[in-house]
Structure formats: C-alpha cells, structure tokens
C-alpha cells in the first residue's frame, strides 16, 4: 500500500497534475463562497426587512438545498444554457447551495442585532446604508462566519462530484484511480480534500477573529 503511494507520488508529472487539480479544487470550492456571501447578505437583509419575502425566500432556499449536487450540476447548464463542460457550472451550482445555506442565518443574525443598537446608530445620524454596513452587518459577522465555515467544508467535499461531469478538481483523482483500479490516487485525493477542508476552516476561524475583535474582548458570543 505505502509502496504504491510512494510510486504514485514519486512521479514529478503526477505531482504537478495533482497540484493543478488542487488549485482547481480551491477555486471551484471557494469562489462560490465569495459569490454566495455577496448574494446572501442582500437577500438575508431583504428577509430581515420584509417579512412576507422571508417565508418565500427561505422556503425556496430549503428546497434548493435539498437537491442533490450531481443533479444540480447538470440542471444548471440546462437552465442557464451554458456548456456542459464549462467549470463555471460547478461554481454556479455551489454558489446556489451556499447562498441557500447562508440566507437564513444572515436574516436571523440581523434580527438578533439589538434594537437599541440600531436606534442608537440612527440617533447618531447614520443613514440606512452606512448604518447597515458599519453597524448591523459587522454584528452579524459571527453568524455569517459560522455559515461560511459549514459551506466551505461542504463545498470542498462536493466539488469532487464534479469530476463525473469533467469539471476538474481533486475528484479527477477518484475517477482516474477507479478506472485503473488504483487506490493510490483515490487515497491521495481523499487526504488532500480533508486537509484542504481543515486548512480553509482554520483560515476562516482566523478571519472571523480578525473581523470581530469585540467577541474576543468579551469572551462571549454575540447573538
């Protein structure tokens, strides 16, 4: 087993390919996170602000989140009219998932910002948009960060499925290993996927701590 792994990883060309797949995997899984945050914040705000919208949006999000990834990967190009082989399909599909994942926590986090804080900001003369960006949104960051962490782990795992539709990423190691009955690439793929998930998670924790110094000072969570 270890001899197999050694032989597999001993090839420079293979290592370079693995590195390429890893890079693909990173952007295929993390770009959707960036897009989803940009989408989920306004949508979550809309849910927070307009109650009737909330039920509809969150209901849609729940249903979308229920759709298995492999199905979504091929429904997206069908609906959007994009090429089946375009890597963007996976990015769109994962953006949809992650947005669905984040809308509700964002709305609930905004709900949880104490009224007196918002009132105080208004009283100090903040206009609505600056108030949202500088007061309400930062207070929602811890919840947003928790959602982003769940989304990143989930996306990193899901990108692999994309290999079935030829979208690249570490999943290629699974299809390659499978067709040749070769465990080494599959195991390397699994280990790298898990390691990537762990590293990204740690980075996100660090990022959240950097963005929310007040939660550290209090030593308690804000909700």
């Amino acid at each position: 087993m270890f001899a197999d792994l050694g032989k597999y990883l001993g090839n420079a060309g293979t290592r370079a390919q693995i590195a390429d797949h890893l890079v693909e995997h990173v952007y295929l899984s993390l770009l959707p996170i960036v897009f989803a945050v940009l989408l989920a914040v306004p949508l979550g705000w809309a849910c927070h602000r307009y109650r009737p919208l909330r039920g509809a949006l969150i209901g849609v999000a729940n249903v979308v989140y229920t759709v298995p990834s492999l199905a979504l990967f091929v429904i997206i190009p069908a609906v959007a009219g994009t090429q089946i082989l375009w890597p963007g399909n996976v990015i769109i599909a994962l953006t949809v998932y992650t947005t669905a994942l984040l809308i509700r926590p964002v709305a609930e986090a905004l709900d949880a910002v104490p009224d007196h804080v918002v009132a105080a900001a208004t009283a100090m003369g903040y206009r609505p948009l600056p108030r949202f960006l500088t007061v309400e949104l930062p207070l929602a960051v811890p919840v947003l960060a928790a959602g982003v962490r769940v989304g990143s782990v989930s996306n990193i795992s899901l990108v692999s499925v994309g290999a079935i539709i030829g979208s690249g990423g570490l999943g290629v190691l699974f299809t390659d290993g499978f067709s040749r009955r070769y465990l080494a690439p599959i195991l390397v793929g699994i280990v790298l996927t898990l390691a990537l998930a762990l590293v990204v998670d740690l980075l996100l924790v660090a990022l959240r701590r950097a963005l929310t110094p007040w939660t550290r000072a209090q030593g308690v969570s804000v909700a």
Partner: protein
Amino acid sequence: MIFVDVWVWLSDPENWSGAGGIPARVGQHLLYCLAATAFAALIAVPLGLYVGHTGRGGVVLVGGGNAIRALPTLGLVTVLYLVAGGGTVPVLIGLVVLAVPPILAGTYAGVQDVDRGVVDAASGMGMTDAQRLWQVELPNALPLLMGGVRNAMLQVVATASVAAYVGLGGLGRPLLDGLRVLDYGQLVGGALFVALLAVLLDLLLSVVQRLVVPRGLRLAPASAARRRVRRGVDDSSPQKLVATAGQPDSGGSRA
C-alpha cells in the same frame, strides 16, 4: 431546447417500462435510500442515545462526524468498490456509513440539548435511568433526532446518485448514462427525478417529524431557533457542527 428533450424522454413509453424504466429506477433508488437510512438509524439512534445519556464519548463523536462531513463521497464510494472488489453491497454499506453520522449527531445533540433542569427533575422525581431515557430524554430529543434523520436521508439520496458511477442502480443511472452520450433528455430528466425524490422524501420526513414530535415541543419553535443561532456562533459548543434539522443551517453532510 433542453426541456423539449426532457419532455421527449419523459413521454417515451419505452422509458417507463422494464428494468431500466423510470418506475423501476425510482423504486430502486427509494429502496436503497429507505433501507440505508433505516439501517443507519438502527445503529445511530441507540448509540447516540447512549452517548447523550451518559455523556461519554461525545468529543470523539463530534470530531468523527465533522471528518465524515468533509469526506468526498465520490472518493469514498470508489475506495469501497475497489477494496471490496466490486458489487453493489459494499456501496450500499457506504451509504449506511454516510447516513450514520448525521443521525448519531442529531440524536446526541438532541439528548444533550434537553434542559438540564428537566433531566434533574426527572431523576429527582425518582425515575430510573431507563425511565429517564425513554420517558424524558428521548421524546425531548426527537426534533433534533428527526433533523438528523432528514439530513441522513438527503445525504443518502445524493450519494446513491453519485454511486451510479460505481455501478449502483437507481436514478443516478439515467443521469450518468445520459451524460456519457449527452442525451440531454435522459441526463436532465434523471437529474430532475433525483431532485424531486430528494424534495419529496424530505417533505415526507417533515410530516413524520410533525407526527412524532410531542406537541409541547412544537409550540416553542421560536426559542429553539434563537438557540440554534447562538449555538452556531459559539466556537466551543460541542453542537456547533452537528445536525439540527433537515435544513440549510443544519450543517449536515451532503453529496
């Protein structure tokens, strides 16, 4: 247009009969999913109740659950297939393996989440350990437990489709076969069936959840939601990454 192809595929009577027909595929998929989830529940619920009741092994359980959540399902099913040397049984075992953590986590979190005062009162009133578990902890754990089951079901529906890649039958078949020849009708039609099945099964389980969760617990959904938000924020909480419901904020694993 693609939806015309889908319509053509759907309206071809040949696709509705025989071993490769849609009803057979749906039945197969349903059977795999229900059987895998039921088996997983048989393993995970007693174990989760034990860990939650005694408090022993919770850290291991949560850590293990997180690792499995990050596990790429395609990698898992290919490894299982190759190690076992083929056949559908190892793949079905894989489905069970993936369905165990969400249910385990949900059950454990459910029992852990029961108000300490309630558990204390149960003992203080003279309930035996078993009475406390069955009469108090289990009923109160049901919302989170059912959430775990719903997550597990979604996971299994999704993974069973992916497992068509290693030869499993069910609704992943038309999807993958359609993909190989870019038969959009079959490809997207198969995908739509997978999506529909997942949504319907989740709906079904949400109905089951309404039926089994005691009324007294359903009356206070607002406070539970608040608790969930708070829990999501707190890094140190053991429940932070475990399933809470079959919903986007659940953190359950998927494929």
